């Protein structure tokens, strides 16, 4: 009989697709994983920037057209929210005026002194290259998952993965942005302890 229409179902998230083989169907794997637009990831982020190094806890919630990233210190202090939709990004810190900009990168750099390449990280954090952009170089592990990737001036390495609902998702991501002038060199180390794919 016809599928039962849920009366007032919450925003119905599509069922999680099965993972194609990263080894033999890398393009499908990359496309299907890239299209999962509803996910959340939690962990610790090490930041190495000439004069803003440190480590923060992060909680990144991604929805189809929007994202919300929370950063805070070890005792929960200094919460910073970076929220974005397709055309605008806001950055809020408790006790201060919210700031807005077109991109998260510019907003974070102006406020925090470092930045996350949010639009590409959206894919890199899943262990896949950003789509419709050239991949300068990539090396895969024997099981087909990415070991290293060079894209958009960033070198990304994936030292370890974890098994989540049939998908191999990164447990640790190291992203280095190397530019000629030393002072814009940035190294981000994500240690991920929780993945949720919807």
């Amino acid at each position, binding site marked *: 009989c016809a599928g039962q229409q849920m009366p007032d179902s919450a925003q119905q998230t599509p069922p999680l697709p099965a993972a194609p083989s990263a080894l033999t169907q890398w393009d499908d794997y990359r496309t299907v994983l890239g299209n999962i637009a509803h996910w959340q990831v*939690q*962990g*610790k982020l*090490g930041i*190495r920037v000439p*004069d803003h*190094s*440190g*480590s923060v*806890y992060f*909680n990144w919630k991604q929805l189809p057209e929007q994202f919300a990233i*929370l950063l*805070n*210190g*070890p*005792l*929960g*202090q*200094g*919460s910073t*929210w970076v929220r974005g939709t397709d055309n605008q990004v806001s950055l*809020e*810190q*408790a*006790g*201060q005026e919210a700031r807005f900009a077109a991109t998260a990168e510019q907003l974070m750099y102006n406020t925090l002194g470092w930045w996350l390449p949010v639009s590409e990280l959206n894919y890199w954090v899943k262990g896949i290259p950003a789509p419709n952009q050239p991949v300068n170089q990539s090396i895969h592990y024997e099981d087909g998952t990415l070991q290293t990737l060079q894209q958009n001036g960033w070198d990304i390495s994936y030292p370890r993965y974890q098994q989540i609902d049939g998908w191999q998702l990164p447990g640790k991501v190291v992203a280095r942005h190397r530019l000629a002038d030393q002072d814009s060199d940035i190294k981000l*180390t994500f*240690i991920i*302890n*929780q993945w949720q794919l919807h």
Partner: protein
Amino acid sequence: ASAAEKLTEQLAPLTAITGRFTQIQKDAEGDVFSRSSGTFTMQRPGMLRWETLEPFPQLLVTDGNKIWLYDEDLEQVTISSVDEQLNQTPAIIFSGELKQIKQQFDVYTKDGARFSLKPKGSGEVYQRLDIEFENNLIKRMMILDGFGQTTEFALTDVTATAVKPLSHFQFQAPQGTDVLVHE
């Protein structure tokens, strides 16, 4: 006695306490978004050793002057000076003279065991700090920040302890650790 005096009476004998913590952060709607646990030692004035074991190893120690944040998995230690940031954490209770707390906070209590501290300044980063005592030891603390998010610290196996040497609240980086100093 005023609420502030009752609080200082409870805090005064606690020169050094140690125990375990569970730290739970909730968003304004009350959904948990992070949970961690470990051990702590707090010692007057202003000394703290906060060792997170789960989900990641992380050691925060301060001797009241410098703060060391050591991330074993990142092989880095960040050294910064005690600053405004730390005053937004429970460490403030052990950070200085008791009259400093009275200067910085309006203190409220109904039963002399649960206290709420509201920062006197405006544009504060957090709205309220709660402290709960049980048989003269701290049992729970909670911070309500400017976003309505709460960070709750449940303390267990809390005991008063002998005063520890300053070195217990300082950090020597192991070989090969990146040392990052914040001016």
